């Protein structure tokens, strides 16, 4: 098998190119600006907290009662406030038909 030599220069170049590619993507797809004082919806709280670690869990995966247990489990794991946990739970329960 051909041996590929990984050098610090190669790693630095790769990281730099990755960062440049990321910046291009970010400027091509700007994020939304949150209006000051706006209350977050359940979907927004869900995306901002849950989406940071794992892919979206579809509301239809679980029943209302099951989501209650799972959201409490996630409240501990992700350090959610009670209000955030309630917003996420309501979003999942309202959309799990």
């Amino acid at each position, binding site marked *: 098998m051909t041996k590929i030599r990984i050098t610090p220069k190669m790693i630095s170049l790769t990281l730099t190119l990755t960062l440049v590619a990321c910046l291009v993507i970010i400027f091509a797809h700007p994020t939304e600006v949150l209006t000051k004082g706006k209350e977050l919806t359940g979907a927004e709280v869900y995306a901002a907290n849950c989406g*940071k670690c794992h892919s979206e869990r579809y509301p239809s995966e679980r029943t209302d009662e099951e989501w209650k*247990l799972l959201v409490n489990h996630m409240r501990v794991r992700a350090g959610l406030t009670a209000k955030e946990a309630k917003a996420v739970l309501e979003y999942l329960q309202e959309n799990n038909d």
Partner: protein
Amino acid sequence: MKRMSLILLLTVFLFLLASLSQAEKAKFIVTGYMDWTYIWSQQEDPDPSIGTFDLFHFNPIFLFQIEDKLMAEAEIEYEHGGDEIILEYAQLDYFLHDYVTVTGGKFLIPFGVFNTKLHPSWISKVPGRPLADDHVVPVDWSEAGVMASGGIPISGYSKINYAVYLTNGLEGPEGEDIRDLRKEGDDRDVVNNNKAVGGRLGIIPVKEIEIGASAYTAKYDDVESPKLSLNFFGVDAEFHHKDFFELRGEFNQADQEVTDLSAPDSVGFKVKRGYYAQAALKLSPLEVDLLNSVEIAVRFSGQDFGGEADDKWEVSPGINYYVTNTAIIRLFYRFNLEKEAYKVDNNQIIFQFAMGF
């Protein structure tokens, strides 16, 4: 063997109980994750390369809502087809206040973010642990104790999350590998009665960014009057852009006190540092059907033990394909790199199917 049989029997019983409960009103559910892996590992000549299948993880998680504010949760880890079975955590959580949860039992130590949030195989974007969270921070790391944790809102998306805890601490012979200081069987203090104190503070100034700092201090030597300190410090940061790009990293340092053999009456510190940086980019913004479920990821990590043979790095580029939202097929190449004097041929190809259920 007897212990393994009891754990297997308990698991089967809990599955049955969960099935019955789920047929009615769910106060008790089973969730969790599993992964199977094929790893091809290079070996130094003349040894042939090795390829092996592995049921790496089967981790059922049991959640029981005792009442609205009180919950029990536990995770059993079966690794390598059941060769290693441990109780990863089992804890009671009491939601004392909107911003405070009190936890008691055996829980994952909230040092950095990889140990508590990112180590499950269906969540981690790159297979295997980064070197910062292997022999520096000993993931999976859980201890018996008490903890207060939660989130405190600031405004809009901005908030603080925190955790502070008091636990029995890591324990073992002087200078032992930090991974081997974990109490994987009996979690009690028997010889070393010193307790560990630690915590993590995370700040989310804007939706896209979180920065955290962690600390832990204890005395670890397994004697009745322990004297040798083991202190951890760490920082973590992550950046997310919409739902398709993330960049994250951690820097961890463990200062492990040992007797200075050149001057036996004095002590010194073994300083062990670890770090990683990881980027992941989903190709869904390209709006090409074939690429909608594809994600490119790369991780660079290293450990620095001060110029010894243990100093090493890894670079793992690869692809994740999301079969469903929680089922991922991965193909990665892991470059394992050492200092020139200790260089060996040990790169790996990793194929993994991981699923959260």
